[in-house]
């Protein structure tokens, strides 16, 4: 890293309607530097980078980029082409790759003139191979992208940017879809790239990797830059406080003796649209007073497991037993009646009816309850009273229980769902990504409620892609990979990471031959 400035954002502001996404943000980047842009969901990180890249037009502010001679030049705003020409590349969270084309064609795509009569793929291949050698980012160039793993696809995206000779690379939440090992490899590659003179901004909300791999940290909160700190001087407490603006309460898990089994799966298979959407011969036992963490990279059968416990997916074989009673037919109604509380992954899509009131959403799962209706007619007063009580108990803030649920913020929607679920004192709770997209205060509130339910005797299945969350809350850890579940005997991040990548398949005599590499 040098002191040569390559990028400077001056007073960038952007509002969407009445929401201020960015408020007068200044940021500088030096040559060869890795700058971490840290902030909670909705703090304005992605908006800021989208303005830099020309996807959004700022309401105010300017951007200056160093040209090849090192002179700072004003960047015309609102033009992605200009940003590309100035040597800025961006790798989005969601990849933009053509699955049926080879990695090579994907990398070259868009950099050739349309009027070209003959493609010089040989030169392109030579250039990409040279980049791969320098950075350690290797992919098999002739494989169709559709057959590459998520980590490989990300490398294709980065190579695509490097192929265009970028000097500044923006990575938006690059590790969200990676196993811990893949993430470590990525950061090694980034290290190699910065030694070649590349400057990197990476957006993240994971404190651990920010501390390990950046040189400088800029923190955004509510659209404002609230601080900047050299990574060497930072620790988790300091930057967490910068992100939240207050200390987050610690959630301490106390050891507890597990009780009787509340959920048992015996050789249960669920057939989804693809293998990644399925479960094969799953065995699982969850006890009372126990949180069982399901760790895994997204798309390895978590949705099939969640669908099964929610009652949406019927098993094609095997037995599902809830509190010593076999579930004859797996349906949402039967699971609710058997005492299963479900916190869905997509709370806007599955967890609530946005156009209906908060009060109505709070009783939607118990429409046959005599407290809610009599003779097929709703007891409006009881429903309102119930909602008034729950919103107070669970601190759901919003325009009132009669207002549409859609008007609540993400954290309050989750609290509304928690209130609905926990109020029924469920025997088993499915918590699928319960803190995703929540700010740290709301997330720690969710964790506290889960631990409370555990103390009250519930068994909890916690599905999360955030290994830190699982290690912090779960009594036992089960790793899910490719539709199969294996209990991790260890709490070691490295070992669990290898299992998440499918590189360890212990005690599976029939399958070990086919699966191990």
């Amino acid at each position, binding site marked *: 890293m040098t002191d040569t400035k390559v990028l400077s954002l001056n007073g960038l502001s952007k509002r969407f309607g009445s929401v201020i996404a960015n408020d007068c943000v200044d940021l500088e980047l030096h040559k060869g530097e890795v700058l971490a842009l840290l902030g909670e969901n909705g703090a304005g990180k992605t908006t800021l980078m989208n303005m830099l890249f020309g996807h959004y037009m700022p309401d105010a502010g300017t951007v200056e980029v160093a040209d090849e001679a090192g002179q700072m030049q004003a960047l015309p*705003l609102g033009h992605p082409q200009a940003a590309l020409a100035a040597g800025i590349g961006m790798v989005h969270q969601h990849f933009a790759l053509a699955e049926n084309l080879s990695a090579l064609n994907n990398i070259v795509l868009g950099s050739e003139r349309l009027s070209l009569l003959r493609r010089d793929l040989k030169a392109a291949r030579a250039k990409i191979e040279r980049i791969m050698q320098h950075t350690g980012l290797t992919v098999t160039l002739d494989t169709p992208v559709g057959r590459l793993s998520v980590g490989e696809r990300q490398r294709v995206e980065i190579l695509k940017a490097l192929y265009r000779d970028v000097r500044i690379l923006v990575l938006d939440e690059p590790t969200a879809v990676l196993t811990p090992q893949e993430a470590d490899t990525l950061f090694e590659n980034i290290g190699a790239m910065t030694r070649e003179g590349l400057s990197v901004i990476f957006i993240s909300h994971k404190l651990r990797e920010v501390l390990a791999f950046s040189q400088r940290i800029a923190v955004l909160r509510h659209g404002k830059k609230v601080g900047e700190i050299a990574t060497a001087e930072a620790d988790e407490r300091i930057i967490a406080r910068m992100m939240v603006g207050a200390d987050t309460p610690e959630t301490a898990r106390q050891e507890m003796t597990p009780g009787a089994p509340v959920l048992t799966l015996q050789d249960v298979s669920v057939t989804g649209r693809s293998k990644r959407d399925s479960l094969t011969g799953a065995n699982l036992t969850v006890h009372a007073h126990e949180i069982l963490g399901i760790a895994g990279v997204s798309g390895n059968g978590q949705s099939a497991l969640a669908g099964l416990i*929610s009652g949406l997916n019927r098993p094609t074989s095997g037995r599902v037993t809830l509190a010593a009673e076999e579930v004859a037919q797996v349906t*949402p109604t039967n699971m609710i009646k058997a005492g299963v509380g479900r916190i869905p992954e997509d709370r806007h899509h*599955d*967890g609530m009816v946005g156009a*209906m009131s908060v009060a109505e959403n709070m009783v*939607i799962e118990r429409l046959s309850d005599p407290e809610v209706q009599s003779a097929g007619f709703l007891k409006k007063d009881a429903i309102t009273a119930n909602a008034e009580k729950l919103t107070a108990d669970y601190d759901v803030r919003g325009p009132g229980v009669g207002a549409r649920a859609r008007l609540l913020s993400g954290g309050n929607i989750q609290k509304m769902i928690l209130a609905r679920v926990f109020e029924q004192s469920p025997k088993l709770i499915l918590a699928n990504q319960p803190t995703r997209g929540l700010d740290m205060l709301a997330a720690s509130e969710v964790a506290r409620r889960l631990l409370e339910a555990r103390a009250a005797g519930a068994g909890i299945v916690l599905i999360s892609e955030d290994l830190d969350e699982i290690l912090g809350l779960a009594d036992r850890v089960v790793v899910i990979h490719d539709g199969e579940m294996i209990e991790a005997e260890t709490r070691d991040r490295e070992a669990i990471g290898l299992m998440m990548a499918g590189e360890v398949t212990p005690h599976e005599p029939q399958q070990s031959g086919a699966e191990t590499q």
Partner: protein
Amino acid sequence: MIRIEPRAATSQAFKLGLPVLSAVIALLAAAIPLAFAGANILTAYGEMVKGVFGSLFAVSEMLTRATPLIFTGLAAALAFRARLWNIGAEGQLYLGAMAAVAIGAGAIEAPSYILVPVIIVMGCAAGAAGMVVPTVLKTRFGADEVVTTLLLNFIVLIFLQYMLEGPLKDPMGMGWPQSAPILDEGTLPGLMTRMRVHSGLIIALVAAAVAQVMLSRSVWGFKLRAVGENAPAARHAGIGVDRTLLSVAIVSGGLAGMAGVSEVAGLKGYLTADLSPGFGYTGIVVAMLAGLSPVGVVVAALFIASVFVGADSMSRSMGVSSYLADLIVSMSLLCVLIGGFFARYKITRSAPTKGEAS
């Protein structure tokens, strides 16, 4: 620069004012073609008002015209609230009408306190069957009900022509393709002597009131709204989505069938292939003008019936085309649809900057 921003909430006054404003704009805009037709605009509108409210007979005609529109409007409004796109009310209306004449034109002889309810129940059942079929095709096989219900209209019309030339043909009808008349015991009683308005109107008003209460206060209405607004969340919460859609189909088709019963047993007395001048389709316009509210359907049906009856009367006395009615109705629907955009978004002006945010 002009920008479009979503609104956080839509005020109640806006929701109520929108259809009224749309109607006023449509009526004002109709002055332009009236002026082109060479009519004195004030006189023309005067004739229109007279044609609707000028006499007891005029009011009776308007209410008579509104009756089937309330039924088909309710059929569309309830189905649309559940996101079940019933475009087939026209066919269901004829199914109801066919059932009414099949039973009421002499097949059963009974006193009116038995025959009238039987005709009503069977007519509703026939209409319901016409909506249950496409709904089962939708829930079982994913067939788009917009297509199936729309096309079923034409199938029913051809079936109707066959029935009127065959099994249902009036032997005393001098060869005209029309059914035998409904027995006096099967006729819905009139409401005023020498006026055409009949007790179908009372049934329509009761149906609207019941629909309003059921929608907002019953568990069934709760499920209907939940399924319509977010079917995956409803399914997750244990609401039987397919079963709810099926029940909505029965009610919606039944109401459309009732429109046919009411026209044939309350007004015409016998069935012809031109019983309905598109009441099924106009019901969709009524439901949209009403913002899919059952009580709103009554108001919207009265408005549209007034426009049609008033324009007819104006056309007779002023010599301008009665198609003006279609123009006014279409204009008000367009205004409501455009207004629906403004209910969700507002347009603001800001200092000019280059480019537009995506």
